[in-house]
């Protein structure tokens, strides 16, 4: 074990330096600038003036780097959301998020974790806000797919079939189900090859919501269209036993849908297995750790 502790004076100095790093950049002039007047006096006293810059301006290099690095990470993690807002406005939300939840992990790619929930609470009511919420959930689903470990798809045995109804299908972390009320996946694909920072126009709302299964494959992420009830079932199956999920779905169906449900459910389950939507079968309750099915 590495037992030696850092001296107290170092921890104090680093706490002051860390506060300088996290000092919000000033947006008032229409660009992001370090506000050296906000730096702690003791942090300034820790540093020496240099041949070209006073201490405050030297610290400002780190202050800017901190924010621009994290803004870049956030924009990369939430590219669709960033372009719908435009980078200037997106950075505003990102800064509020990062001030509330500064990065803790050594893995820089985890810094954006939870941004979609933060944005959900930060946005007002209204169609544009709803579209942004949807965009951030799609971006978050995409991130989860990329970061998912390797898993083997569920290939049920005869024994599994016998216990299927009272078991819960474990969602594969490499598959996500999303719903869109605006054609955002299409927009996301378009933006992947279009650099830019300005806000793009939100496409017209779809007449009917569309459901998709996103699946990570060797060549990238493939999205496959789902029937609406199929998408709802896959979402319910991530949280409940098969029996409960079917019951919950049935309760929302029309008479015609209810009549067709047994056959459709068989077909959707078979298709889900074929597509690798699940990676296991369990009798354990959902702990909320399964990330494969996007919660809507």
């Amino acid at each position, binding site marked *: *074990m*590495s*037992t*030696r*502790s*850092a*001296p107290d004076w*170092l*921890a104090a*100095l*680093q706490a002051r*330096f*860390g506060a300088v*790093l996290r000092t919000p950049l000033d947006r008032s002039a229409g660009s992001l600038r370090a506000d050296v007047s906000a730096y702690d006096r003791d942090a300034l*006293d*820790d*540093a*020496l003036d*240099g*041949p*070209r*810059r006073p*201490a405050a301006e*030297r*610290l400002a*290099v*780190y202050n800017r*780097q901190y924010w621009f*690095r*994290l803004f*870049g*990470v956030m*924009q*990369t*993690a939430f*590219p669709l959301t960033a372009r719908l807002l435009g980078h200037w406005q997106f950075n505003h939300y990102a800064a509020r998020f990062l001030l509330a939840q500064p*990065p*803790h*992990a*050594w*893995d*820089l*790619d985890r*810094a954006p974790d939870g941004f979609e929930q933060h944005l959900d609470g930060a946005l007002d009511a209204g169609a544009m806000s709803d579209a942004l919420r949807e965009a951030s959930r799609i*971006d978050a689903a*995409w*991130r989860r797919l*990329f*970061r998912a*470990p*390797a898993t083997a798809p569920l290939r049920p045995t005869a024994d599994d079939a016998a216990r299927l109804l009272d078991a819960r299908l474990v969602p594969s972390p490499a598959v996500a189900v999303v719903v869109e009320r605006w054609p955002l996946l299409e927009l996301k*694909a378009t933006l*992947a*090859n279009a650099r830019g920072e300005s806000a793009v126009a939100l496409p017209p709302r779809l007449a009917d919501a569309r459901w998709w299964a996103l699946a*990570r494959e*060797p*060549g*990238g*992420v*493939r999205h496959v269209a789902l029937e609406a009830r199929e998408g709802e079932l896959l979402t319910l199956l991530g949280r409940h036993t098969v029996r409960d999920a079917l019951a919950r779905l049935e309760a929302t169906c029309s008479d015609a849908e209810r009549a067709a449900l047994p056959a459709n459910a068989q077909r959707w389950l078979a298709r889900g297995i074929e597509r690798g939507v699940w990676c296991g079968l369990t009798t354990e309750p959902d702990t909320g750790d399964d990330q494969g099915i996007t919660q809507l």
Partner: protein
Amino acid sequence: MRASADRCGFRATRHGAIVAPVSEPSITANNDAPRRAPAALARDALGLGLRIAHYGYLFEHWPAVGYFEVISENFMGPALPPRQRLDAVRARYPVVLHGVGLNLLGPDPLDEAYLDALCRLADHVDAPFVTDHLCWTGARGLSHHDLLPAPYVPELVELAAERAAHVQRRLGRPFGLENLSSYVEFRRSTMTEWEFYTSVVRTAGCSFMLDVNNIYVSSQNHGFDPLDYLRAIDFSRVLQVHIAGHTREPDGTLVDTHDHPVVDAVWALYAAAWRMGGPFPTLLEWDERIPPMPDALAELAKARAVRP
């Protein structure tokens, strides 16, 4: 090395991409490459920092490169796509690991879970050596994701050396510490940077990961002679030398951006290092405005031309 560049399309840039684009290049599997290239590096090998922007070219052409250096943290998580890419690269080239998250000079004890993951990765690629920075990257449970300097004092030599020795023991392979580019100096310092750096490496019994661009950047920002720095280095302990480009701000401050070709002054410093202690493996880092891979390799090849 900058703390962030390739991961976020920025470090993703540090590094390019946490999001896998649908069109992300796939790996060409039909080359008759050996199952795995030897791990060892030639002492005068030329290597390149592995970046996502180069995957398309790399996986199609498999160009002649002495070795690749990868950012350790980009491959320490459970995500499958990065590991698949890494395995494909490792099948054909030696791979060395370069970390940005060890937090050697942080106030908190070293993160043993982080070290566990680093050790697993080093074993996985059979890395000839592993490097990180003589710096701190976070404090009090927060990670700043930058390579931050500390005051240069004897008390911290002991702290850093004990921790570096611990890391090397855990890894079971050579561990090198990289010198930083820095933009600030502390009132509390009582040693020069090179006195601090060489003392830590000597006391720890580890190695130097010498970045000549960083020496040049800091020399211009703080007003010292970069050759004084080089003269303090025991080149028998140098695992690798980094070269990179930087940006000059209007007031003359240099920032270690890794977004330009290597400047003549840094090539001159590299040549001086080679005269003092070559041969050593040499690696080009390019993290922003990354040029096509053939251009990056052409820049790397200049190293051979400037060697005395």
